[in-house]
């Protein structure tokens, strides 16, 4: 079919002709259209994972920049850079290059801080994303694989952080490395062998920074990138979950098409995340390594805390009792082993296996694409809150010396608070959460049955006062609503069902025609008296001030 100028549908514009040229070679029009037409559900909490992705992107970009200047070596050098207080001090080449990066590279400090903030943001958004997935049940079949990949990525993100903040070899990071060394040593049977394999000998040796560096810039990011790709491919393949709502079923996705709405919003979010991290990186100082000084095994500063995501392990280590286990044959399982390797291992194992555990316990093996509201699954929600409380008490204990110092309480009291709190608080929170979930469930049903409180009090002829309720749907003979709960939020305020008309737009003066808005609202059935004809007062408000009138209202409950 030789194309001629008269062929129907043949592009006439230059751009169109080029598009045809490309499609002749790559045959992409079909897949591209399918991609552009893909529907994404719209909810703010679905953006949390995107924030993690974008933070990772920034960490990759800024980290690549840092590698141009950083020297991952423990070779001893004497600092001669422009930071006067440390001039002439012996230090490792790693710390020296971190200082040069901060003081002698134009914009280097900015990039270093951007990198650190991006890393913090990355882990934080992963954790919040994970909580959203957990509490809404998005991990259920068929998405267990993606949950598992997510947990693995969280662990990798933590490893990324640990290997990253060790690199500058300042006093704080060296202290952290010392503790990492002690944790590896504490592993029963293979501890010393593992330590010799990781450090190449006794602490600290000369290899560890180089090894952590290659893990930090190549090995872990490569695995993370691969897992992110799989995570997203599975997401696209399985389609995103959605909350229950009008028209939403287990077999469809309601929302916006990728192009242009979703793409524009996602790009907007990308830039907002970039902007926030860049702002933090410039305006909020983080890890000022020049204040800590070079690492020296004989020195330490008070309030030596890891980055926030490792704080829970520091806390568990602080509150764990002094329980060495001495085995026959003079072997020892050090106390340090339990709060670090075992606690972290157990936490992440339970987390990774949770979808399987829940499936086993509930016997629910069906595929789910509609999300649950946390209140509708009180056991899971309470378990989650319980785990979160456990985690938060550990995290708080990781900073117990700072609390003791700032609030002038005994450090030993803080430690006992942690020791008791980690056992007592989670069950208390479980019970409380369970009660709150049930309360919220009951209230939803109450509103469905009796209607929304309008705030309008009526006096009945015999003197009784009642509040008028607005039913949400058809009512039975007793005035009770007949709508069943469908897993979607139940409106509880008159405004949510169009009880009030929207404000007329415009800041200094109205930019809409008030009467036009009134007509539009009436057409939509908004406003309580939309079905009646209302007189407009001169201010553009209805004469009764928009308050619900008695006409057409449900009569007082009959029972």
């Amino acid at each position, binding site marked *: 079919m030789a194309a001629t100028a008269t062929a129907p549908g043949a592009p006439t514009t230059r751009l169109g002709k080029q598009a045809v040229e490309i499609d002749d070679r790559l045959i992409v029009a079909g897949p591209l259209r399918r991609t552009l*037409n893909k529907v994404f559900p719209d909810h703010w909490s679905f953006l949390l994972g995107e924030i993690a992705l974008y933070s990772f992107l920034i960490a990759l970009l800024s980290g690549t920049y840092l590698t141009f200047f950083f020297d991952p070596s423990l070779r001893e050098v004497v600092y001669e850079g422009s930071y006067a207080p440390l001039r002439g001090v012996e230090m490792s080449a790693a710390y020296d290059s971190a200082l040069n990066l901060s003081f002698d590279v134009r914009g280097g400090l*900015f990039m270093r801080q951007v990198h650190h903030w991006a890393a913090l943001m990355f882990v934080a958004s992963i954790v919040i994303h994970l909580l959203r997935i957990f509490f809404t049940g998005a991990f259920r079949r068929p998405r267990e694989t993606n949950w598992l990949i997510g947990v693995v990525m969280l662990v990798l993100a933590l490893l990324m952080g640990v290997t990253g903040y060790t690199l500058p070899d300042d006093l704080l990071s060296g202290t952290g490395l010392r503790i990492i060394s*002690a944790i590896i040593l504490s592993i029963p049977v293979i501890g010393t062998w593992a330590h010799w394999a990781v450090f190449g000998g006794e602490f600290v040796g000369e290899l560890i920074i180089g090894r952590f560096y290659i893990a930090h810039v190549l090995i872990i990011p490569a695995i993370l990138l691969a897992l992110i790709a799989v995570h997203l491919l599975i997401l696209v393949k399985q389609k995103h979950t959605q909350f229950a709502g009008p028209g939403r079923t287990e077999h469809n996705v309601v929302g916006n098409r990728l192009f242009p709405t979703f793409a*524009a919003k996602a790009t907007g979010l990308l*830039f907002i995340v970039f902007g926030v991290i860049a702002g933090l990186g410039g305006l909020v100082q983080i890890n000022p390594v020049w204040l800590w000084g070079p690492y020296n095994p004989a020195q330490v500063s008070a309030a030596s805390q890891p980055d926030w995501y490792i704080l829970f392990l520091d806390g568990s280590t602080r509150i764990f009792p002094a329980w060495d286990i001495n085995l026959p044959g003079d072997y020892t399982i050090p106390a340090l082993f339990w709060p670090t390797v075992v606690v972290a291992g157990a936490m992440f194992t339970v987390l990774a296996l949770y979808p399987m555990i829940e499936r086993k316990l509930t016997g629910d093996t069906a595929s789910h694409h509609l999300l649950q509201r946390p209140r509708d699954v009180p056991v899971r929600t309470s378990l989650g809150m319980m785990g979160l409380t456990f985690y938060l008490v550990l995290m708080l204990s990781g900073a117990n010396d700072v609390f003791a110092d700032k609030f002038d309480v005994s450090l030993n009291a803080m430690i006992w608070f942690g020791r008791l709190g980690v056992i007592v608080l989670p069950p208390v929170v479980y019970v409380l959460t369970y009660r709150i979930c049930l309360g919220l469930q009951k209230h939803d049903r109450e509103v469905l049955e009796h209607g929304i409180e309008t705030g309008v009090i009526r006096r009945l002829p015999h003197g009784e006062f009642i509040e008028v309720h607005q039913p949400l749907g058809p009512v039975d003979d007793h005035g009770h609503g007949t709508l069943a709960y469908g897993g979607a939020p139940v409106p509880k305020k008159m405004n949510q069902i169009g009880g009030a008309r929207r404000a007329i737009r415009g800041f200094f003066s109205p930019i809409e025609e008030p009467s036009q808005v009134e007509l539009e609202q009436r057409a939509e059935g908004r406003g309580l008296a939309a079905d009646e004809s209302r007189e407009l007062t001169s201010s553009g408000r209805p004469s009764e001030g928009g308050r619900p009138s008695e006409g057409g209202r449900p009569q007082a409950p009959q029972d």
Partner: protein
Amino acid sequence: MTTHDTRPGSSGGADTPGPLYGGPDEDYTPEQLAAMPREDLDRLGARYDGVEILHVDPGPEPGSRMEKRAIRQVGLVFTLAGLFAFAFVVVYIGSGWFFPDWQWEVTDRGWSALFTPLLGLTMGLSLFLVGVGLVLYTKKLLPHETAVQDKHDGSHFDRVTTGATLVGGLHNSGLARRKLITRSLGFMGGGLGLMLLMPLGGLINNPNTGNPLGRTAWAEGVRLVRNDGSPIRPGDQEPGSLETVFPAVPGGNRQSDAATMLIRLRPAQLAEARPREGQDDFGYGDYVAYSKICTHAGCPVSLYEQETSRILCPCHQSQFDVTQGAKPVFGPATRSLPQLPITVDDEGYFVARADYPEAVGPTYWNRERI
């Protein structure tokens, strides 16, 4: 599409699809498609992808005040983003040229202390505003459509046909019958796997040769020196004070296990001192020397509160009582800090009488055995 090549096999654009071609081009002729307006084409394609546009809320009416205001807003935000981006460039290249130097001085309160914050402010605002502009654009100027896409469960047809292909391939390979091949493949896989893992053996070193964890640089007659290398006499320290000392060997002050605390006890502390069993003579007069490396996780224990005779490790808050042989009295540490036996040499300077009698630093599996 034209071709000037007339050789056989080069049919140019005159190629005709085979009988299995199929696809939407058979359902819709170019003429039919050309007759459809763009909106219908969009919806037709969407339907083809299982997407239905339920409802479109058109954006503001063209030319209305609403639209004009939204355009002004979005334009303003994008302009500001550009302005801040240029401000970043000016700050970045201007420092040290027409602005003061960006490099930080210890005393500096001026431009160079502002350099990094300004970079963050300008780049942050610029990128943030780009994002805000895009969101405003989507919310205020684009039509809001609600689309619904069907979700397909796994297809039985696909499963059966794919299964047939896979099983057929496996059957044709005859692996189920040809046992020699499967067995040799298994043998080969195991061998190859092991072989590829072997180089990791380079990481393995024996930690038990020469007892590196149990020894330090301390030995009989090694002087206790300060960080600057100066030796210490009894009487240099006030009662109740603590000093960090190192072995007088090259690099002794950089070794991770040698740092030691030399403590001069107050008379009151001395009176109630109860050293560990068999270590009564490890001190010298009112002086005692303990390892500075915490027996919990290896941090240097540093905070000495002499009123309570306690040494606190700032990492995990283990507390040791120096009057009771540095026994742990609170926190996660389980073992006392090892005590260094000390005396004075002929010139009156502190020296060690021997290495620590036990391993310093964190506990490990076979610590008691070596």
